């Protein structure tokens, strides 16, 4: 998951710039799962994530000639995708939100469900999803997707200090949410 460890496929990018459709697919295949995973974590459902990924790659291919190689092509693509996800998150805020996990909010049934081995993960995923936008974005990018604070600062156009303090706040909140379930979850792990 170390972003900086991936070598930059400049030749693919160059071929994309010339409009080569096979290279479009190559570039897509190289980062589709990571872009999709991030979108799922930020948006919380497959439908919205697919829309965001589609929008991301259309924007990537439309603007590939503007990629100058100042950063890794992956960072450039993730910056586009994260910004698209943020836009979707903001739009979603204005509509009543429902999904399957939402039904269990504040309900002790969640604790009973911890007999199921995937429940600890579900609790965390639900709590991550409910984090405020800034906290969630930094938490997902740093802790799950493995970006460094320097890279997050670049993607989100914030300072490294802001990235660090938002991560600390997100983790503090998640830990707090986990405390009531701690005994049950620990038995599970």
């Amino acid at each position: 998951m170390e972003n900086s460890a991936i070598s930059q496929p400049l030749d693919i990018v160059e071929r994309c710039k010339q409009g080569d459709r096979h290279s479009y697919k190559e570039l897509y295949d190289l980062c589709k799962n990571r872009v999709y995973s991030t979108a799922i974590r930020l948006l919380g459902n497959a439908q919205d994530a697919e829309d965001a990924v589609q929008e991301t790659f259309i924007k990537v291919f439309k603007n590939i000639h503007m990629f100058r190689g100042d950063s890794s092509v992956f960072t450039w693509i993730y910056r586009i995708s994260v910004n698209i996800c943020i836009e979707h998150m903001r739009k979603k805020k204005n509509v009543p939100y429902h999904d399957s996990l939402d039904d269990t909010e504040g309900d002790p049934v969640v604790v009973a469900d911890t007999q199921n081995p995937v429940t600890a993960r579900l609790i965390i995923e639900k709590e991550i999803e409910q984090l405020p936008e800034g906290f969630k974005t930094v938490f997902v990018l740093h802790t799950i997707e493995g970006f460094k604070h320097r890279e997050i600062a670049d993607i989100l156009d914030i300072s490294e200090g802001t990235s660090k303090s938002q991560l600390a706040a997100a983790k503090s909140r998640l830990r707090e949410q986990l405390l009531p379930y701690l005994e049950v979850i620990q038995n599970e792990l």
Partner: protein
Amino acid sequence: MNCEEFWKIYEDSGITPEGEDHLLDCPGCRKELRAEKVLMNIVQNLPEHEAPDTLWARIEGALPNKQIVEERERPNFDSIIHYIRGMFTYLQAVPFKPVCAACVIMLMSILATRYYYTRPLSPEDRLLKQDEIAYELEQKEQDYIAAIDKLSKLVENKKSSIDPELYDLYREKIALLDDYILQCRDALEQNESNTNVRTYLALAYKEKAETLQEMYELIN
């Protein structure tokens, strides 16, 4: 060290000796640290979601089809001018040679031909379109000729204030355009309704007017 300080240092450097001391005295932070470990354990083992196989087809389907776009969209007048201006800008940087001039003329012909022939039209439509284009181009020609007259006089009066080397380059470019304009006029005498030639002619006039405008701006 209080709890807030413990977590601040923990995020930057993990558990320091002072942090250990705080943990010994603080059951709250000890419990929260267990939560931290559980959290990291789960989060770092979350599976990566696989993008569905159908997604690429969706993306590819939504990408503009380059070939179709090229066939359907007639390049507009301004974009052709832009190409030619780019060519001239390039040529300004190198000494003019007859072969360069030939290249420009060839380029203009290719672009102008493309401009007109990219969309198939019915014979009736074509005649109507030709009339429309011819009329439009003639209007443009008249405008450019008027502008060229005016600008030529303005530039001629103050040509000594332009850097001589630059002035020579501009003169050569204008000479090339004049030569080209003459060729177009000859061709038009053979066939007055040749819209392609009218298009080249209007392009050349426009380029000449803009070149003079540039010279005028240099003076002022």
